[in-house]
Structures are given as C-alpha cells and as structure tokens.
C-alpha cells in the first residue's frame, strides 16, 4: 500500500479494504488474532471428532463472474 499511496495511483474499489481508512488499531488486531486462534481450535476439534482425512468444499460460490463482480472469497479464505 505504501508504494500505491506514494505513486498517487488510484485505489481500485476492491483493493480499498486495505486502505488506511479501514486499518485496525493494534488492540483490534491483537483481539482478532485471539478470535482466529479460537476458531482454528473449533475447526480442529471437528476434524478430530469426525476422524477426517480431508474436507471437501467449493472454492467460491459461483463460476467465473463478469470482471470485477465476484461476490465473496469466504470458502477459500476460511
């Protein structure tokens, strides 16, 4: 983001989630890491409970969309 800011290049709407205006404060980042650890533990418990070898899930909820129109990367990101 530093180089983009310095260049004066406009930020594409979808990139804007990484814009300074949306940055978390240090305590917010810290708290979010605790949440992430808790969620990982819950997922791990499920994995063990069912004795899984693998999990099958979609990559994304839809096929290739028109340019700039994807809805969410929820499946892949989690």
């Amino acid at each position, binding site marked *: *983001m530093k180089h*983009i800011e310095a260049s004066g*290049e*406009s*930020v*594409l709407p*979808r*990139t*804007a*989630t*990484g*814009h*300074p*205006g*949306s*940055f*978390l*404060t240090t305590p*917010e*980042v810290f708290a*979010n*890491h605790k*949440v*992430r650890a808790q*969620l990982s533990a*819950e*997922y791990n418990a*499920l*994995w063990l409970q*069912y*004795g*899984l*070898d*693998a*999990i*099958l*899930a*979609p*990559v*994304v*909820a*839809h*096929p*290739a*969309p*028109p*340019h*700039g*129109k*994807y*809805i*969410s*990367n*929820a*499946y*892949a*990101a*989690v």
Partner: protein
Amino acid sequence: VTKGLLAAGAVRYIKTNLSQAHLILESMNNVFGTTCNPYNLKLSVGGSSGGEGAVLPAKAAVLATGTDGGGSIRFPAMFHGVWGLKCSKGRIPMTGIHSPGDRNESVNAGLGPMTKTVGGLELWLKAQLTCRPWEYDFTCIPMPWQTDEAQKCQKRLRIGVVSDDGVVRPTPPISRALEMVIDALDKAGHEVIELPEEQMKSLHRRSTSCVMKQTSNRADTAS
C-alpha cells in the same frame, strides 16, 4: 521459488498479470489493465495469480506458479478448469517475493503450482523440494519429497463436506460439481460425510468476519 524450477531445467518466459497489491481475487490493475478469461473474454480470470491461470487454457505455458492466501491460486484454477495446489506456509521458499507472504505472520499465504494435470503439480513440487529449500530459507520446514505419500491411496478415506458455508450459498453449477466429486469419491470406495450444517454455518460466518475484519465505529472508515 524460481531456484527449484530452474535447477530442474525449467525455462522462464512469461510473467503474467495479477491484481493491484495482490489484494483482490481478480487480475485488474491500473498498469496493465484487466486480464480476460480465454474461455470467455467477458469473464474474470480470478486472482490474484489470475494471469497464471489464464496461460494454461490459452496454451501459452504448461506450468504456472502462484501465491495464495485467501484463494489466489484456487480462484484462477477453478475459473480455468485446471489443477491448483496451495502448499502450506513454510513448504516453499517465499524469500525474494514481493507479496504479502514474505515474513507476514498474519496471513498464512503459501506458494504453489497450477497445471492441467495432477502429474504437473507433482513435477513442480518435486522440483522445489529436490533443492532442499530449508537449507537456504530458514522459514522452510525440513521436509523432503515423499514418494510413498504421493501414491494413490489404498485405504478408505473419510472426507467431510461443507456444501454451504452460510455466507454465500453455492450457485447450481457449483453444487452440481460438488455432487460429481462426491459421487466419484463414493464410487472409489471412500466414505463421504456431510458435516453438521448449522455448526459449519456458524463457524464459517464467524471465521469470514474474522478474516475480513475491518474497523468499525470510526468516522474515517473508507467508503
């Protein structure tokens, strides 16, 4: 990452388009514009490593390399009907890569290949690990290529399915594809179980909000 490929005799000849700052699952930026899907120019190639996905069906390359934190190999692979493998963090050296992956402890990004065949994935990964990356990049796990592990599995596997994450319900083509995979696994003798729907939806909703966490209740929030 190029070290392993070059040592195995690879010829580098294309560097392809990606998204602005690797931050979106598209391949559009203000420098090179928008990359179009070779199957239908009106459609997205995915991203961030979207150009790498597009070169395979365009028959411009046989082996592609990408990085993936939240879908950047998997989106392009899916949008082009090719194989993609996001290796775990610490498997492939990230040194020298100008991406959020290098030394970023918050994002568990990993490197990996995209190819038209499973054998291609194996070739790429084998080339990487033959160079023993842990001997020159301290973030890599000392774990060599294991031929035994790469063989077709003989035992019966138990595979859990997440068919709806409760955030975005898959569209019919995606659900149909999932059914086809489940059917194939079943025919191959593996056990496929649906994970508890409500529990998975809750877990995935909370996880999505954690991953995409943005500041709230602040006046200067980007619109």
